[in-house]
């Protein structure tokens, strides 16, 4: 009896009959919203079932049906290596479900995102604010009745007309001001620039009383409610030298690795609290993907986690393949592993380079970029693109591996160990570096689990969990490798761990490269894979079939799927809701660093501002993945 069956039995014993949906191994239990808290608390507290994390919370809008909103929860058991999904529903007139943040703080941002995107309220959430969209936005973009927001594309023949409607021309500015008067609360695009307040918001002086804090939309009392930050500011109101001030870091700051904004409250150099503000790179990728067929949605995934685009491809393809229940040929599986590990190496190189640059070391940056170039060369040789390869496709690979692939990869794998030794020597053995990172930004094991950390951040804190080993996908179960583990949980441990992971990736890539069998690179299932080119030349049916696959796309059976891979930044998962059509009805990307960034304020408590820079660097945030 599998662990999922045991869980279902226990739930049945305790809560009576519950509706269970099962599709290709993905088990979803429908829970009435009034019992949700009880069920989640029961699952998380039961030591035998061992559910430790609610890795993903997201919504589905069943527009036109009642109850309209669905909220899904993916629970992960570290003990039994199994997952279960919970579903609950909320009606459209008052979409409210109980918040699970009080019992599992790591769900905090996921619930905020669901509120932001769907307008589902979470009863009992400590800090239900918008997270991705601007604070003054007053709608919920992932609802099905919210338009994708198509703007006319300006070509040479109509550019003049289109530009005359935009705020950078005088006519357009007047029109935008008019629109602004009609809808005072909505600031969309260019209109935002016509609004003097929107601009002033960024130019106000930052002071400790109003200013930034006003804009952030939270008072200190509100901020105090964010879980672990609830400790009062250590200040004496009568002492003028013992006051806190709010300092804004980002969204444009060299050390934030993109457009992350951190509102920090400082007492002198000491950090009292940090409030991350994300959404500056919100691209509406999930909404865009819902408007495209599965194949056309794939390139969007590259552009989310752009430091490790193949892992995004893999997570997406895995979810689609789970929906389709399609067999992947062995060659594709082995080749995917080689490419994924190269991808991990290149992502960790980016981390090593950019992070050490933040800490003032510029040589490792140049070395890392140089070594990344070589991965890009391999990717270009294989797929034709340096970065956004979209090489992993639902059903296999985009096309066959090029001749000489093994030779090129082998040469790189032989070249790397000496380079990694150099990194270890210059960076990890450097006393200045050690001083700046050891015992800085500590996250304990319990905090890492509670705040939904995964990947290197959790492993540096002692959580012995790697999806490649513990819930293997592709052919990882046939390979021999170790999972590096540290227990310190500090910034230094996260650096050391990632370097160790690169060495393991080398090992994995070597084994996988030696094991690549010959044969098909794309599934033989003609419902998914287009017919081979040589067949198109001689067969009319194949031509039609090819045309249908590329224009219409393949259909998936209705149902849900959740597939996760171990990306360089933790668990990268895709939640898919299919309605039987050729486009995903709902497609949600669960990013590892989106979840684990919640734990960063904990790591910064009581540290110095300069330590904050080291801590952000060690988190390796990729904002495309966080904001999507």
């Amino acid at each position, binding site marked *: 009896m599998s662990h999922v069956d045991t869980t279902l039995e226990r739930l049945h014993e305790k809560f009576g009959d519950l509706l269970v949906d099962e599709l290709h191994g993905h088990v979803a239990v429908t829970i009435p919203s009034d019992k949700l808290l009880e069920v989640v608390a029961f699952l998380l507290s039961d030591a035998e079932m061992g559910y430790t994390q609610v890795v993903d919370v997201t919504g589905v809008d069943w527009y036109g049906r009642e109850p309209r909103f669905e909220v899904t929860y993916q629970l992960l058991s570290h003990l039994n290596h199994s997952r279960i999904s919970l579903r609950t529903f909320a009606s459209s007139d008052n979409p409210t479900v109980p918040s699970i943040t009080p019992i599992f703080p790591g769900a905090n941002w996921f619930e905020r995102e669901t509120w932001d995107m769907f307008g589902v309220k979470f009863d009992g959430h400590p800090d239900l604010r918008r997270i991705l969209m601007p604070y003054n936005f007053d709608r919920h973009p992932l609802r099905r009745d919210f338009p994708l927001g198509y703007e006319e594309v300006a070509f040479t023949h109509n550019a003049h007309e289109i530009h005359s409607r935009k705020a950078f021309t005088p006519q357009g500015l007047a029109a935008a001001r008019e629109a602004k008067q009609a809808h005072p609360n909505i600031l969309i695009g*260019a209109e935002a620039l016509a609004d003097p307040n929107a601009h002033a918001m960024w130019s106000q002086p930052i002071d400790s009383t109003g200013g930034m804090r006003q804009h952030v939309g939270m008072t200190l009392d509100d901020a105090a409610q964010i879980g672990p930050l609830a400790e009062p500011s250590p200040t004496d109101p009568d002492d003028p030298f013992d006051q806190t001030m709010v300092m804004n870091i980002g969204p444009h700051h060299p050390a934030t690795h993109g457009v992350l904004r951190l509102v920090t409250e400082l007492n002198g150099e000491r950090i009292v609290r940090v409030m991350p503000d994300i959404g500056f790179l919100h691209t509406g990728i999930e909404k865009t993907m819902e408007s495209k067929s599965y194949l056309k949605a794939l390139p969007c995934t590259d552009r989310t986690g752009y430091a490790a685009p193949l892992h995004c491809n893999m997570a997406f393809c895995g979810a689609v393949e789970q929906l389709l229940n399609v067999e992947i040929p062995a060659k594709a599986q082995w080749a995917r592993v080689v490419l994924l590990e190269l991808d991990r190496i290149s992502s960790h190189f980016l981390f090593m380079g950019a992070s050490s640059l933040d800490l003032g070391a510029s040589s490792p940056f140049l070395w890392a970029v140089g070594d990344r170039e070589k991965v890009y060369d391999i990717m270009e040789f294989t797929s034709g693109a340096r970065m956004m390869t979209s090489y992993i496709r639902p059903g296999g690979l985009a096309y066959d591996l090029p001749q000489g692939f093994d030779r090129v990869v082998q040469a790189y794998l032989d070249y790397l160990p000496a380079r990694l030794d150099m990194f270890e020597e210059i960076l990890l053995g450097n006393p200045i570096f050690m001083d700046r990172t050891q015992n800085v930004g500590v996250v304990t094991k319990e905090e890492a689990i509670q705040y939904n950390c995964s990947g290197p951040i959790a492993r540096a804190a002692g959580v012995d969990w790697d999806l490649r080993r513990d819930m293997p996908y592709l052919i990882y179960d046939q390979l021999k490798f170790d999972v590096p583990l540290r227990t310190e949980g500090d910034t230094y441990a996260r650096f050391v761990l990632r370097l160790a992971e690169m060495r393991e990736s080398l090992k994995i890539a070597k084994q996988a490269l030696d094991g690549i069998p010959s044969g098909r690179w794309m599934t033989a299932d003609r419902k998914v894979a287009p017919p081979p080119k040589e067949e198109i030349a001689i067969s009319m049916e194949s031509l039609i079939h090819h045309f249908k696959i590329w224009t219409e796309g393949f259909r998936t059976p209705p149902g849900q799927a959740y597939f996760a891979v171990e990306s360089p930044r933790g668990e990268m998962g895709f939640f898919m809701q299919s309605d039987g059509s050729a486009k995903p009805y709902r497609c949600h990307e669960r990013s590892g660093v989106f979840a684990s960034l919640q734990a960063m304020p904990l790591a910064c408590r009581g540290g110095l501002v300069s330590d904050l820079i080291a801590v952000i660097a060690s988190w390796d945030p990729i904002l495309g993945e966080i904001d999507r």
Partner: protein
Amino acid sequence: MGLEEKTGNMGIVTTSLEKALGWARSRSMWPALFGLACCAIEMMHAQGPRQDMARFGLELMRASPRQSDLMIVAGRCSRKMAPVLRQIYDQMADPKWVVSMGDCASCTGIFNNYALIQGVDEVVPVDVYIAGCPPRAEALIDGIMMLHEKIEREKLTGVREPAIDLRQPQPGNAVTLFDRVPTRR
């Protein structure tokens, strides 16, 4: 700001001055570090050992807009980010230039949706557009060299030439990768 306001009409003197200034300005640009998304990775690679933008006088990316005169908008600009982008542009010292790197910054490429500004030229005046998703590091360097040529042609009147559009070949105002006459340096 800058020399433009002080010179006035100096006849033949300005012509030589223009040349000297254009040469000097184009040879030592200080790009602001304005990486937004994926293109920023390629921008880093352009700074890296293989492409090495320092060969063209772009030694160092400046973190402060006050110290820079070139903004490479590398990546997609969301509606939440647009006011920030504009503010950073306003903070930069004159004379200043903007390179719109990649499809998202130029016209948002595949993301024609609610979240993004449809091209950063809605927010800041752009001098060079570079196509690609993301453009290779070499394409960025090509765009920057074109910007150099444009700066060298600039007059002290303060009037700017129209933007160079690397997105589609347009004989006339736009110079493209293929029809450009190589200049001796």
